[in-house]
């Protein structure tokens, strides 16, 4: 439903080959659609009707796709959702334009959706949307800065702060908040939604980082060890940076200073082996478990005023779902 709705709002016409076709590429690929699912369910749980929520959820997913396009360019990634990235297929310039196009279409979709709402409520939703976009960009910029400045003295706590900006706000916190705002007509208490959204979202992201190190490429949809080729500061890498000693530390330093194209298969596999030697994978799992442990408690606080029903049941099942795929 979400995928079809996204494709419906992307214009047809020329130039097809270098704009509208690449714009359709990512939304056409099967994804988890976690963000629209959170938004729709939170909205319904707080009393919204489906038609009021659909356009908002579609706008979130379109902006997410725009971020993915630009993210893949910035990271030099080669695979996305099991297929080559837009930049790999169409080149950098066309991919950039497609990403911009998706962001603009996301705004159009949200404008249409908020016309159904009271003016004050529409303002709230737009405020949330703008804030979410800026938080995400702040996170992206912080991460780029870490890479360009060769920042090496990072701690797990720095990583959490990064993903609060870069990932959690737009993946979990924003969809839940905006759903709750529309559903409750702006009356719901939003603070607890931030707590639940962050604890759930952070655990979800760290699980994703782990899958990139231990998962199966066919299932995962992205290149395995891709984060290591990129030198992406994930939690396992941050742990390894902080704990490696002697020659291993020197090797880490050299590895971090290389460009993606300069990181050989052997080097990447050596770094991956060091993560086992220094317990970085185990540390990451346990650290994230500590974050996820309280998510169920925070869920009950965030949704205390929500209506019982299948939407609430779905949201409540999210935390056990992440737990069940943990080890």
């Amino acid at each position, binding site marked *: 439903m979400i995928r079809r709705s996204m494709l419906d709002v992307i214009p047809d016409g020329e130039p097809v080959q270098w704009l509208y076709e690449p714009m359709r590429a990512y939304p056409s690929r099967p994804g988890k659609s976690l963000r629209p699912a959170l938004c729709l369910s939170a909205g319904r749980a707080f009393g919204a009707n489906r038609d009021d929520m659909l356009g908002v959820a579609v706008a979130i997913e379109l902006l997410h796709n725009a971020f993915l396009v630009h993210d893949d360019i910035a990271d030099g990634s080669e695979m996305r959702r099991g297929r080559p990235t837009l930049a790999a297929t169409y080149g950098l310039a066309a991919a950039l334009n497609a990403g911009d196009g998706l962001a603009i279409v996301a705004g159009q979709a949200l404008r249409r959706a908020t016309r159904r709402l009271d003016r004050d409520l529409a303002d709230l939703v737009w405020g949330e949307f703008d804030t979410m976009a800026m938080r995400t960009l702040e996170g992206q910029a912080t991460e780029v800065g870490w890479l360009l400045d060769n920042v090496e003295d990072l701690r797990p*706590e720095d990583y959490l702060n990064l993903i609060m900006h870069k990932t959690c706000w737009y993946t979990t916190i924003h969809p839940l908040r905006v759903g709750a705002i529309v559903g409750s007509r702006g009356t719901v208490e939003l603070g607890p939604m931030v707590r639940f959204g962050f604890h759930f979202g952070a655990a979800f992201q760290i699980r994703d980082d782990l899958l990139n190190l231990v998962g199966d490429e066919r299932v995962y949809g992205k290149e395995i060890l891709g984060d290591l080729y990129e030198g992406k500061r994930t939690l396992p890498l941050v742990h390894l940076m902080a704990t490696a000693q002697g020659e291993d530390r020197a090797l880490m330093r050299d590895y971090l200073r290389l460009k993606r194209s300069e990181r050989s298969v052997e080097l990447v596999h050596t770094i991956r082996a060091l993560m086992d030697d220094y317990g970085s994978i185990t540390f990451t799992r*346990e650290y994230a478990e*500590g*974050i996820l442990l*309280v998510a169920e408690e925070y869920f009950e606080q965030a949704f205390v005023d929500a209506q019982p029903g299948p939407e609430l049941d779905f949201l409540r099942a999210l935390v056990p779902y992440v737990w069940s795929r943990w080890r």
Partner: protein
Amino acid sequence: MVSRDFGDGAVGEAPWASVFDPDANLRAVGEVQARGFRAASEVVDRFIRLAGNTGGANAGLSSSEPEQTGNKQARESMGRDVDRLVSSWESLMGQLVQSLRGSPAPGFPTLDLTITDAHGVLSLQAVPGGRACSEVWLHNGGPKDLGEVKLRCSDLLRHDGGVVAAHTVRFEPGVVAMPARTSRGVCVEVDVADELSAGVYRGTLLAHGHPDVWLPVLLDVPTAS
């Protein structure tokens, strides 16, 4: 939690038995988990505090967010958030300790900032060239926000004048926010120099701005074998 039964009992006699000590392993798991929980709580707290201080677009919260309205109702609402965090935290830690130890909560060294009281001894142990690490808990059981609290440690002295300088003692986190009715754990780490003589080094742990609260610190440096 994973529990392991080693069956024949012979493992305990091996020199590497401590590696397979289930109790020690479970305790270590709990420490990492607690660290993750604490760090996540601090990130969320900081966002809410930031929102309370700045408001507007910089707050990262919508105009419906209580922190931006600045009215009494909003502040009360934020207070309820904090209370909920505390009750969650208490519930979590209770469950965590129970699941790890299967017994009542162990006696961590604590500094109670509201009743100016302290319990226990902060014990650290590491061989020369190693790192000692332990945790101290700060409690604020009162209704007032005590702001940010910074811990400080004296030089650690051995009976014959040997010294571990205060600046080698680190705190993680370095500064702790202590809103009303909260408890926070702080990891205390000391890098033990290669050349440091074996023995027991003693000192005092203090909380800046809380002159009547202190704890004895004991660093045990066994002979490296």
